[in-house]
């Protein structure tokens, strides 16, 4: 990081945005003087209300941390101590920094938990962190940060690990708290949508340098620097696909000049008259929870419950939902990486669930999977060439010499150079690794690819490139995709049809346009309303959000799943008839904001 300058006014929110490795987190740590001393060197000046922080003695700096600058982190799961109650952890900060007595601290803790909108704060004070969900833990972290009424709150990717509806709640909470407490916020994020939602001013970082710093509206409407422009063009905007039927490539922007090509709609790839590649009917997967002396079944996770859908050749069906909704389990169950309880999976008319393991191995070649974390899905001890030919050699589809030519071809197809075959996964960047995984999946010439959050972990610009690659491959090879994702904006861009999952069930399925423009199920509406929109002008629309947590699909052992019925909204657009409990909760939200 090099020569970074910006200032944050009182009561102002400044966002530092950039891709991984751009130095945005290092900036935050430097302000707190938390970088490892031996390996880093801070030069320049950091002033808090005119007081220079860099020359302060360590003891004085410790007082500043917590009292005047507080910090919240990305991982709410690991930033709380699991063996202490949350009440104790908040009180500790109060006793230490504000010198309250234990009983005063307890009263103050309840007030703080109330402030961050934790229901039944008093009762939950003596609970341990494992009883809190990710969103609730992040609220606790915020309560702890607020404990000493800091002047500046540094939030390092505070919502990145959270589900989109929870993210919306936390962002809303932070906005409200900032008004109430009158503090300044330095918000570090990679998500332009979040920036548009929350920041007054934005600092764009690239390669350890500030490339642009301006009021957020200016950044979004008239970005100066080519990098800012390329970053913005890669951000999918919910609602931008209105009136288009087919998926669309992301525009490709030259980083040096900022010139962008005009993205076109992809050609029509769906083979309508053919029988679908994949037909799933009544797929169900439950996990048993056993405990006690005789490990009796105490409950079951209804991970996937009676879902049915089909995917045609050349079609992309997106499976969307939040964590725990069963979308990844669906993908794994389709591959029989986890054995489904019942249902049928017809791949080109053959029921995979009726096959023996060895028959399955042959049949499954027509369906391949790419995973969220490309690094984790490559064997670290295997070079890239070997990794890509493995599927061919295992299935005796090529001799070693044929395989070598094939690797070169596959690497070129995914936009990599054939002379990379002898390198190992750690020598590649995240985007390149995902390309390698795609090449490996293509080796068997599958008809369907299950992409389980395949672009979710990638930086925006890389994400755009990989999505473009997937669209090109679909056009060229007639691939069908089952695109599992939580990212509604990307889904809108790439899919032909969308299925929304909630607690293991498909609550709504239909053509993409129908789902995004005319959502019926309350959950679909809530999901769409929660997506941050990369347009600061829309920020002032206050969102009525409920503070519901995501429910858990764990049910008692004697639970009998209700029989669901679907209503056809229009051709191909079906919605589950929902329980009456949705009505009373959702009514105000729907009235206030019809999506997009």
């Amino acid at each position: 990081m090099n020569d970074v300058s910006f200032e944050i006014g009182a009561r102002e929110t400044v966002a530092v945005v950039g891709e991984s490795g751009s130095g945005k987190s290092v900036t935050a740590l430097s302000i707190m003087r938390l970088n490892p001393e031996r390996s880093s060197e801070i030069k320049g000046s950091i002033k808090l209300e005119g007081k220079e922080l860099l020359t302060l003695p360590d003891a004085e700096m410790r007082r500043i941390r917590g009292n005047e600058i507080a910090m919240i982190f990305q991982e709410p799961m690991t930033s709380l101590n699991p063996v202490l109650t949350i009440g104790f952890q908040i009180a500790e900060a109060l006793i230490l920094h504000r010198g309250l007595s234990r009983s005063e601290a307890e009263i103050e803790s309840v007030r703080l938990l109330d402030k961050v909108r934790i229901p039944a704060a008093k009762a939950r004070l003596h609970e341990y962190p494992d009883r809190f969900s990710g969103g609730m833990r992040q609220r606790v972290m915020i309560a702890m940060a607020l404990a000493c009424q800091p002047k500046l709150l540094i939030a390092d990717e505070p919502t990145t690990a959270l589900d989109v509806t929870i993210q919306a709640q936390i962002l809303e909470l932070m906005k409200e708290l900032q008004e109430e407490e009158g503090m300044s916020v330095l918000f570090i994020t990679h998500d332009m949508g979040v920036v548009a939602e929350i920041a007054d001013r934005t600092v764009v970082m690239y390669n350890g340098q500030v490339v642009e710093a301006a009021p957020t509206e200016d950044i979004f409407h008239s970005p100066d620097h080519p990098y800012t422009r390329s970053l913005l063009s890669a951000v999918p905007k919910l609602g931008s696909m209105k009136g288009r039927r087919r998926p669309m490539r992301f525009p490709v922007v030259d980083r040096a000049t900022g010139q962008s090509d005009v993205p076109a709609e992809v050609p029509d790839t769906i083979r309508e008259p053919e029988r679908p590649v994949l037909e799933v009917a009544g797929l169900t997967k439950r996990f048993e929870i056993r405990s006690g002396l005789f490990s009796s079944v105490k409950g079951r996770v209804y991970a996937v419950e009676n879902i049915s859908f089909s995917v045609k050749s050349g079609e992309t069906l997106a499976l969307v939902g939040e964590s725990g909704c069963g979308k990844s389990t669906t993908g794994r169950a389709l591959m029989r990486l986890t054995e489904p309880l019942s249902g049928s999976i017809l791949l080109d008319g053959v029921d995979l669930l009726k096959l023996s393991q060895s028959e399955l191995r042959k049949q499954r070649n027509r369906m391949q999977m790419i995973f969220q974390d490309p690094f984790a899905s490559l064997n670290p001890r295997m070079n890239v060439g070997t990794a890509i030919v493995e599927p061919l050699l295992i299935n005796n589809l090529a001799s070693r010499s044929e395989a070598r030519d094939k690797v070169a071809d596959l690497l070129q197809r995914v936009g990599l150079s054939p002379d990379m075959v002898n390198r190992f996964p750690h020598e590649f960047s995240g985007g390149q690794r995902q390309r390698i995984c795609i090449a490996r999946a293509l080796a068997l010439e599958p008809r369907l690819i299950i992409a389980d959050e395949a672009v979710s972990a990638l930086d925006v610009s890389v994400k755009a490139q990989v999505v473009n690659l997937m669209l090109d491959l679909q056009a060229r090879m007639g691939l069908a995709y089952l695109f599992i994702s939580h990212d509604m904006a990307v889904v809108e861009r790439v899919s032909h049809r969308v299925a929304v999952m909630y607690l293991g069930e498909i609550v709504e399925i239909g053509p993409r346009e129908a789902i995004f423009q005319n959502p019926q199920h309350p959950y679909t509406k809530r999901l769409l309303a929660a997506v941050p929109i990369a347009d600061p002008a829309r920020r002032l629309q206050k969102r009525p959000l409920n503070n519901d947590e995501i429910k858990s699909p764990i049910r008692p052992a004697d639970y009998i799943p209700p029989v669901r019925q679907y209503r056809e909204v229009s051709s191909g657009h079906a919605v589950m008839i929902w329980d009456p409990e949705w009505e009373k909760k959702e009514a105000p939200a729907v009235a206030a904001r019809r999506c997009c």
Partner: protein
Amino acid sequence: MTFSLSWRKNRPVSTPLLVASIFVLVVVFVSFLAPILTSVDPLSMTPDARLKPPSYSHLLGTDMFGRDILARVLYGGQISLVIGLATAALATTIGTILGLVAGAGQLSDKILMRIMDGMMAIPGILLAIALATIFGGGVLTVIVALAIPEVPGVARLARSLTLTLREQVFVEAARSYGAGPLRVLFKYILPNALAPIAVQATYICGVAILYEAYLSFVGVGVPPEHPSWGNIVAEGRSFALIAPHMILYPSVLIAVVVLAINLIGDGARDMLDPRFTLPD
């Protein structure tokens, strides 16, 4: 969790690791070059020169039969080091195979690991003494007797690594493109488990050199016609007060070599530990 067990490139080798490695290499070379370095037969007795302190003709003195201690220590190094390395190799090979098999299947896991638990309930050195007594003296016997008590530890390590690696996405990916259970085990799991097992092997090597001395001490170790550091010390203990040089050199060597081997293990572990990263 990111699971990385590869050697970190560009990481400087720590000083203790470097010094220990060089020291062990020197000891290995000197021991195996013994026939060149000294012309004295470690077994030839000279009854006139018994229990002599170090002198020009016997640089480290002589023992109670007038044998040259320098020659005995050098040749003894061969036996001790071979026992250390062979024990480590044998124990890790058997242990790794058992651990992989246990980690791969549920039934094999239950059976194998209960046997391993049973073995772990017997103190290692007692088991080794019992085995060495039953099978009688000999270098091979000592190696087997020392290796068997070490097997459960390696098996547990290999099993836990297998269980962790089995859940890694790249293993799932391999299954999804058709890799069978054996291929998964040997091409995906084993290569990634080798590094921590190799670290464990260095510790076993050190322990084996030490235990070889124990076995000699209680009289069930390497027979006297093969000098080893252990049996040199064992023979010399009755003369410790009149001729301390007899046990001094082999004892110091055992201590320092075992220390060095452990330092190598520690250094290697630090380099392989995914949690230990140098800031960029």
